[in-house]
């Protein structure tokens, strides 16, 4: 059955996915709001950048993050000046990488849900003396709730499923960067097929349950958060 190392990998994965999902909701919401509302000519380019991880191989993303966060990269220099060392091969590094990697899975459902609200409810709220912040919290957030649920589930599940970017950036440090997907890889490398099998089956079951929940919860609507 599951070894201690497997359990450590599972708990690390859950910790990573939870941290990343929470941070992504905080970072993704304003980006989604801006993308949903702006008439700026930057909407296209910004939207494309957000969507890049959907098409790029994780190795490409991981490679550039490794450069930027490494000792000679500008983020690396910044973190060193702040006395934080460098981010690659740390849990924090994985969090940063996962945020980039899972960004579109969080931003796009929220953006679609916000676009579906339209202008009218906000105008109505304005004529009822609601300030812009008030409107955001009392109209936009509640009406975009299905989009937030989809975004959280997809962001969490996608982070759990990461592999390539972690290998590029995090290596294979037990309890620090060795998540489930890397653990399975290690098992297979050392020909421990039965252990690999147990963990892999658990991942299949987890992913299936998440998606099942998502699709039955939102049977009447599309996965991407439009109404």
């Amino acid at each position, binding site marked *: 059955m599951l070894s201690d190392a497997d359990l450590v990998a599972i708990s690390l994965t859950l910790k990573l996915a939870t941290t990343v999902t929470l941070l992504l909701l905080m970072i993704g919401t304003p980006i989604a709001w801006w993308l949903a509302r702006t008439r700026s000519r930057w909407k296209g380019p910004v939207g494309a950048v957000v969507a890049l991880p959907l098409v790029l191989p994780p190795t490409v993303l991981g490679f550039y993050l490794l450069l930027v966060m490494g000792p000679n990269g500008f983020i690396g220099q910044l973190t060193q000046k702040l006395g934080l060392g460098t981010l690659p091969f740390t849990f924090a590094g994985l969090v940063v990488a996962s945020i980039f990697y899972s960004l579109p899975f969080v931003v796009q459902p929220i953006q679609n849900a916000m676009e579906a609200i339209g202008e009218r409810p906000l*105008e109505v709220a304005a004529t009822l*003396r609601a300030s812009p912040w008030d409107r955001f919290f009392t109209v936009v957030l509640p009406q975009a709730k299905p989009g937030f649920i989809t975004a959280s589930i997809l962001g969490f599940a996608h982070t759990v499923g990461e592999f390539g970017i972690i290998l590029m950036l995090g290596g294979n440090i037990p309890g620090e960067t060795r998540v489930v997907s890397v653990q399975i890889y290690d098992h297979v490398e050392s020909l421990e097929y039965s252990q690999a099998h147990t963990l892999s089956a658990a991942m299949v079951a987890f992913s299936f349950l998440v998606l099942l929940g998502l699709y039955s919860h939102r049977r009447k609507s599309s996965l991407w958060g439009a109404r």
Partner: protein
Amino acid sequence: MATTESPTTQLQAKFQLRYRDAKHDDCALDVDLVMPGKGITAIFGQSGSGKTSLLRCIAGLERAEQGHLVVNGNTWQSDTVFVAPHKRPLGYVFQESSLFSHLTAEKNLQYALKRAPLPTAKDTYQHILKLMGIAPILQRYPSELSGGERQRVAITRALLIQPSLLLMDEPLASLDSARKQEILPYLEKLRSAFDIPILYVSHSVDEIARLADHVVLLQQGRAITQGSIAEVFSRIDVPLAAGNGASVVWQGEVIERDKHWQLARVACAGGALWVADTGDALGARIRVRILASDISLALNAYQDTSFLNRLPVMVSEIAPEANGAMALVRLKTAEDYLLANLTRRSVDQLAIKPGQQLWAQIKSAAVIR
């Protein structure tokens, strides 16, 4: 006209709003209006005449490049000032359902209660609920309400924000005629129960005849005329009076009730009329609408006709239809006007011309309250 009133009960609105696209080189809206700061002012016009744009500019939902707006003494927009919509003390009723879909009817009302400048007393709240007839449906979500119920909740919500100006953008347009008849009485109660000036956008002559005190006529973004309802309805040179629907609206006081024949006599500025008794007490102020097609003209005061009402009139203007058999004749009565829809042949046979003294025979006059 409102121009003689003091500026504190007056609405001055001057807007120039351009179209968003470059195709048009004229303005979507170009008005300079002074409207009364009390009663119901109807803004009338066909679709695309700029009615809704005017209302949105007044609410601040649309920002006219050139704009000057003073509402009962408070400047909401000028060259240097633009008060944000949520800081304007107004209520807005939108054309279609505007209730928040994620809140029950009651929570929708509470959204306004929480943000109103002063707390609303429980009694007042209950009174408004009763007046609008929505107490039994408060726990439902908007999707579980009929169109008429949704609009009643929306009107209530707009009242609970304690507006000093209520803007209504065709609140009945999305409803079928049965639902319209369901809501109109509530709007009439609104006029008598609350002392809030109302701007009421509509393209329905019927609604305006029932509700408005003052009428502004918009055409292609410009105000082509405005005045009291009696004044604007009786003009034959503006589109409101066009076609079969031409009518005048008189207001008067019930001075006599004939129990036997179920009739009531109403004293109006244009003369006294017998109308069907609708149960209004002596002294009640009611509105009467007289269709141009219900009037015939005679040279003498025949007593032996079935017409209930006969009034001496003087012909003031004649507007023959450009291509057609009919002509619209404007008649001066004591202190008011009537419109009569006649065939051009009758006009010719009776040799009707301006200044002529005639008798108007009124077949029926409808009480519209």
